[in-house]
C-alpha cells in the first residue's frame, strides 16, 4: 500500500521539477515547497524524520453537516466526519477495501442470511468505558427505533423485521439482532445482501454510548458531550465555522495514527474554497469549481486530483406522457445522437468517462453492460438516429418539440444546452430548456405530468450495482420514469435472493441489459471526484467511494533545499 504511494510520490516530484521554471505568480511563496522524499520503515510506516512537526490537517468539507448523531446523519459532509469519530464492526482501509473494525472476524451462514460477529476484547470508548457487543446491538436498535426519527435507517432495511419495527408494528427487541455473549453478536437478514458488511462500516450502523445518550438526549452529539470509539474525538463545533477533532489516545490503533488534529471547515462556495486552499488555509478541498479546470490543471498540476466515483449522470425520459409513451424508436434516436465525447471533453472537462449504460465501472468488480452502439463512431450513431427519428414519424418539416428540465446548476445547464444543440444538429429537434429550483424539480419529476426529458443522476450509498438498478423497479419511489417491465422486476427479485456472487452479478447484468434495451435513460457520463490536495499530505488513496479516513494520513515536512530555491 505504502509502496504504491511512494512510487506515486516519485512521479509527482519529477513532474514538479519541470514546472519550477514556469511563472509562479499567484501562488503563495513557500507554500509551494516540495515535500521531502517519503522514506518507509520496515513496518510500512513513514520514518519519523520525514514527518512535519505539526500533524494537523485542514479539510474543506462542503455544506455544514446537518448533525453529528451517527444515526441521523445522511449527508456526505456529516458522514465523512463521523467516519473519523467512530468505528463500526467493519471498517475501510485507505484504498476503500473492507477490513475488520471493532469485529475481529465474522461468520456468514450458508444461506447468507445470518452474520455472527466476534468483537475485539480490548476495545474502549473515548471516556475509558469498555466497549462491548451490547453497545453495537443498542446502536443498531436505536438507529431503527421509530422514536429516533432517522431517515438514514432506510439503508438498514435488509435486517430482519426492520421494516415492521420502523412502521411501529413490532417492538425494537424483535429486530433480527441478538447478543450471544459479551463479545459476540448475531445479525439476521431478510435475504442475502452482499453489501451488508460494507454497510456496517457506515455511520448508521455505528455504536453509541448508551449511558451518554440516555442522560443527555439530543444534546449527546455536542462537543464535550460526544463519546466515540474511533480514531478521533470531537473537541469543538462552531456551526458554519469549523469542527475540530483531536486524536483519541484510547483508540485501538492510536499508536499508528499520526495526525494529531483534524479541522473540518464548511465550504459552501467552491470558488471561495479554492481561494482558501491557495492562501494555504486548507490542505484538502471538498471540490473545485467546474469552470476552473483548465486553469487549475496548468497552475496546480501537483495538487489537482481527479478519480472515478461511483455515480453516473444521465437524462431520463418520462414514459407515461407524449411524446415518449410507447415510442422506443424516438427515444433511441435521441439517445444515439448525443455525442458524449464532446460533453465530457468540452463541457464538463474534468475527466468524466463517457457512458453508455447505467452502472458506473469499478463498483465491486461489476462490469457494466455495454450496448452495441458504444463501439460505433458518432457519424454512424447519428445516421441510425436519423433513420429511427423518421421511423417515429418526425422530419424536418415536422420536428419534435421537447423540453429538457433540470434543477438549477451550471453544469446541468451546460449539459442540457449541449444535448439540445446536438439534437438540433443531428435531427432538427426543437428542444427548450427549463430550469427549476431543486425541490420543485423533484416534485415535477415525481408527479410525471409535465416532465418530458429531465436531468438525473445517481451517486450510490454503498458499493453495489443494485443501488442503481433498484430505482427502476415498478413503483419504486424514485422511479420518475414511469418504467415498468415484468422481466426487469423479476430479475431484481432474483438478485435479492441469490447467494452466489457470480450468479448475482450475471442477474444484475441481465437486468441492466433489459433496462438499456427499453431506452429509459440517456446515459451521459460517470462521475469523478475532483479536488486540490496539499502534496505534503500523504497516506490516502483514491477510491470509487470517495471515502478518505484521516486516520491513515500524515504530513511530510518541506525539504529545505527546494524551498530555499523558491525564495532567493
Amino acid at each position, binding site marked *: 500500500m505504502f509502496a504504491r504511494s511512494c512510487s506515486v510520490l516519485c512521479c509527482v516530484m519529477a513532474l514538479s521539477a519541470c514546472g519550477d521554471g514556469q511563472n509562479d505568480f499567484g501562488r503563495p511563496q513557500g507554500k509551494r515547497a516540495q515535500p521531502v522524499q517519503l522514506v518507509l520503515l520496515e513496518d510500512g510506516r513513514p520514518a519519523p524524520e520525514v514527518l512535519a512537526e505539526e500533524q494537523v490537517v485542514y479539510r474543506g468539507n462542503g455544506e455544514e453537516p446537518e448533525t453529528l448523531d451517527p444515526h441521523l446523519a445522511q449527508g456526505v459532509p456529516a458522514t465523512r466526519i463521523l467516519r473519523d469519530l467512530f468505528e463500526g464492526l467493519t471498517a475501510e482501509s485507505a484504498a476503500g477495501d473492507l477490513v475488520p473494525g471493532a469485529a475481529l472476524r465474522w461468520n456468514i451462514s450458508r444461506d447468507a442470511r445470518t452474520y455472527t460477529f466476534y468483537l475485539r476484547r480490548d476495545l474502549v470508548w473515548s471516556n475509558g468505558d469498555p466497549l462491548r457487543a451490547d453497545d453495537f446491538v443498542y446502536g443498531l436498535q436505536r438507529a431503527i427505533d421509530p422514536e429516533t426519527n432517522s431517515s438514514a435507517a*432506510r439503508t438498514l432495511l435488509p435486517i430482519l423485521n426492520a421494516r415492521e419495527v*420502523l412502521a411501529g408494528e413490532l417492538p425494537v427487541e424483535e429486530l433480527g439482532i441478538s447478543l450471544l455473549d459479551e463479545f459476540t453478536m448475531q445479525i439476521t437478514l431478510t435475504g442475502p445482501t452482499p453489501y451488508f458488511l460494507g454497510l456496517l462500516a457506515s455511520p448508521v450502523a455505528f455504536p453509541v454510548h448508551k449511558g451518554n445518550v440516555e442522560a443527555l438526549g439530543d444534546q449527546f452529539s455536542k462537543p464535550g458531550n460526544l463519546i466515540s470509539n474511533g480514531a478521533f474525538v470531537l473537541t469543538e463545533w462552531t456551526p458554519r465555522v469549523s469542527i475540530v477533532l483531536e486524536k483519541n489516545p484510547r483508540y485501538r490503533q492510536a499508536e499508528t495514527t499520526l495526525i494529531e488534529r483534524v479541522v473540518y471547515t464548511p465550504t459552501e462556495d467552491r470558488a471561495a474554497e479554492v481561494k482558501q486552499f491557495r492562501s494555504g488555509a486548507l490542505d484538502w478541498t471538498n471540490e473545485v469549481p467546474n469552470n476552473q479546470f483548465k486553469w487549475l490543471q496548468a497552475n496546480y498540476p501537483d495538487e489537482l486530483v481527479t478519480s472515478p466515483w461511483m455515480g453516473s449522470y444521465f437524462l431520463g425520459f418520462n414514459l407515461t406522457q407524449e411524446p415518449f409513451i410507447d415510442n422506443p424508436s424516438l427515444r433511441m434516436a435521441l439517445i444515439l445522437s448525443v455525442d458524449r465525447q464532446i460533453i465530457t471533453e468540452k463541457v464538463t472537462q474534468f475527466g468524466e468517462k463517457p457512458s453508455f449504460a447505467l452502472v458506473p465501472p469499478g463498483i465491486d468488480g461489476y462490469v457494466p453492460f455495454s450496448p452495441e452502439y458504444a463501439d460505433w463512431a458518432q457519424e454512424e450513431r447519428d445516421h441510425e438516429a436519423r433513420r429511427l427519428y423518421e421511423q417515429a414519424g418526425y422530419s424536418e418539416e415536422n420536428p419534435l418539440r421537447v423540453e429538457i428540465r433540470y434543477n438549477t446548476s451550471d453544469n446541468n445547464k451546460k449539459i442540457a444546452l449541449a444535448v439540445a444543440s446536438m439534437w438540433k444538429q443531428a435531427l432538427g429537434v426543437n428542444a427548450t430548456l427549463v430550469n427549476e429550483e431543486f425541490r420543485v424539480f423533484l416534485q415535477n419529476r415525481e408527479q410525471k405530468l409535465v416532465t418530458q426529458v429531465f436531468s438525473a443522476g445517481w451517486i450510490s450509498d454503498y458499493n453495489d450495482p443494485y443501488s442503481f438498478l433498484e430505482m427502476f423497479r415498478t413503483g419504486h419511489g424514485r422511479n420518475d420514469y414511469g418504467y415498468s417491465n415484468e422481466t426487469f422486476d423479476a430479475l431484481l427479485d432474483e438478485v435479492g435472493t441469490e447467494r452466489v456472487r457470480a450468479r448475482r452479478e450475471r442477474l444484475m447484468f441481465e437486468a441492466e441489459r433489459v433496462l438499456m434495451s427499453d431506452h429509459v435513460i440517456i446515459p451521459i457520463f460517470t462521475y469523478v471526484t475532483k479536488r486540490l490536495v496539499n502534496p505534503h499530505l500523504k497516506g490516502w488513496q483514491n477510491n470509487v467511494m470517495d471515502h478518505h479516513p484521516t486516520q491513515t494520513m500524515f504530513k511530510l515536512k518541506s525539504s529545505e533545499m527546494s524551498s530555499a530555491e523558491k525564495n532567493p
Partner: protein
Amino acid sequence: MKQAGVFRHAAVRLLGLIPTLLVLITIAFFLIRIAPGGPFDAEKVLPPEIRANLDANYHLDEPLLQQYFRYLGQIVTGDFGPSFQYKDWTVNELIARGFPVSATIGGLAMALAFVLGTLIGTFAALKQNSVIDYSVMGVAMLGISIPNFVVAPLLILGTAVYAGWLPAGGWDWSWQRMVLPVVTLALPVVAYIARLTRGSMIEVLHSNYIRTARAKGLPERQVIRRHAFKPAILPVISYMGPATAALITGSVVIERIYSIPGLGSYFVQGALNRDYTLVLGVVIFYGIVIVVLNFIVDLLYAWLNPRIRYDEAQ
C-alpha cells in the same frame, strides 16, 4: 411634556408591532408551505414507513391550520423549535450564534459607511461642480454599480491569495477576518450615503439661515459643523433605518464568499431546504429588527429636526 410624548409614542409603536408580526408570521407560514416539496424530500426517497414516522414526529401529518395554531402557541413562549435541517441545533441557538456575527460585521460596515459617506458627500457638496466633485461622485457611482460578488473575490485575490496580508475567509472574531467583509459590505453604502449627503448638503447650504450664519461672519468650518450638518444628514438617517436592518441581519453573498457564519445564509438555506422552523424563525427575527430600527430612526429624527415634535402631533 416632551419626554412623556416620546414614551407614549414608543408604547404605541411597540403595541403596533404585534399585529405587524402576526401578519408577517401568517404570510410567511403559509407561503413556505405553498412552496412545492417538503423538508424530507430528497433525491433518495424514504420508504413509506420512515416517511410516515417522520411526519408524525414533526406533526406534519396534521391539518395545516392545526399546525399553524400549534406554531403560534409555541412561539409565544419564545421557542422557535428545532431546525429540520440542522438536527443538533434549535432555531434559537442558530439565531443566537449567527446574529452577533452578522450584527458585528453589519454594524461596523454601517459605521464605516456613515463616517466615510457623510465626509465624502460634504466634501463634494462644498466643491460643487468642480473636478473633485465629479471624480468623487463618479467613484461613488462605481461603488453602487459594482455588485459585491465581484468586489469580494477580487479583494480576496488581491489581499489574501497574492499578498497574503489577510486570511481568505473563515471566522474567529479576529479583526483580520473582519476587514474584508466589512469593507465589501460598506462600499455600496458609502457611495449611497455620499450621494444623499451631497444632495441635501447643497440644498441646505443654499438656505437662508446658512446665509445669515455666514453674514454674521462665522468661519465656514463652524457654519458647516454647527448649522448645516444636522439638517443635511436627515435623509441619510431615514435611509439608515432599513439599511442597517439589512446589513446587520446578514448578507448571503458576503457570508458565502468569506465563509462567515452569519444569519443571512440560514434564511436562504432554510428556504431551499424547506426548513420551515428555521425560515420562520429568521423571518420573525428580521421583522422585529426592522421595526425596532425604524423606531430608533424616528427618535433620532425628533432629536435632529426641531420641526418634528411628537407631543405636538395631536
